[in-house]
């Protein structure tokens, strides 16, 4: 944690930071609203499949909003995005593989009871 190559931030840099600051505020409000909407959604008399789909999309929206703006992926090098996406794809692939391997329709759960 040393300060090896110090340089005063340029005007353009500071202007960009101020712009980001406003993005963060808008995003925080948006996240709060979406979270509130998720809670309301589960009580609505709609088909389960519809609610589940909308919840998944909302959750994915919040997830990517945080990684893109709060985690600066949208401003940073693309390599970082691909690194993270690799982990994410593997995580989803794990779930898909487990779901296929242990399909509830084909397994005798008494073995685990």
């Amino acid at each position, binding site marked *: 944690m040393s*300060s090896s190559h110090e340089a005063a931030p340029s005007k353009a840099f500071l202007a960009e930071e101020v712009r*980001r600051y406003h993005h963060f505020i808008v*995003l925080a409000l948006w*996240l709060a609203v979406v979270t509130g909407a998720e*809670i309301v959604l589960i009580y609505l008399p709609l088909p389960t499949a519809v609610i589940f789909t909308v919840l998944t999309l909302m959750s994915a929206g919040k997830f990517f909003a945080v990684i893109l703006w709060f985690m*600066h992926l949208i401003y*940073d090098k693309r390599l970082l995005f691909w690194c993270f996406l690799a982990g994410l794809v*593997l995580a989803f692939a794990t*779930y898909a593989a487990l779901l296929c391997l242990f399909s509830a329709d084909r397994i005798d759960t008494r073995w685990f009871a």
Partner: protein
Amino acid sequence: MSDHAAAHEAPTSTGIDHKKLIMWLFLASDCMFFGTLISTHLLYRKLFPAGFTDAEGHQRFIQDLFSIELTSFSTFILLMSSFLMALAVSAMHKGQLKSFRRNVLGVIIFGLIFLGCQVFEFTHFYHKGLTIQNSVLGSTFYVLTGTHGTHVAIGVLWLILLYFYSFTGKLGGHMGALDVEVAGLYWHFVDIVWIIIFTAVYLVEYLGPYGIWGSGLPAVVK
């Protein structure tokens, strides 16, 4: 890549600071780690939709235990802590140390509130009969949310150290901002994992009279 990023390109072969690159690689690996835990929980919820049996031998549903108000509150707290963390990183980039301290203190307080909510939730569940040993649901639930809670606790500890380190005068310039940014990446990751857990573990249990997994329950249990 934006002009902003280009202006601060690191003198490395990738143009990315090594600390930041390593943190992103760690987060990618942690993604797989949490992916496995969440997958295991979801899979076992599908296989064992009936919930758990308490100490008196009564069949209990997870919906009887969950408090959506408490979980929503802790979700909101964690999201807002992420917002404050973004402001803290921004303040460090601008060289505003006081603003950084103010924001990071907010993140620490919000992180502690989240942990307090989790401790309360775990205690409540334990007294209602859900333990880590008495059901598959208990095992996967406590391991998943407990691992996440441990990540939050590590994040809080890290930020407390950064907060006090900022008073030594050594946390400044580009490297100081990078240190804070790396800590911020970790904190935001903890937040995005909770975004998934909130939906996949908590909210889906409220879909339909027995949760989304309840369709697999035998009629006698319902």
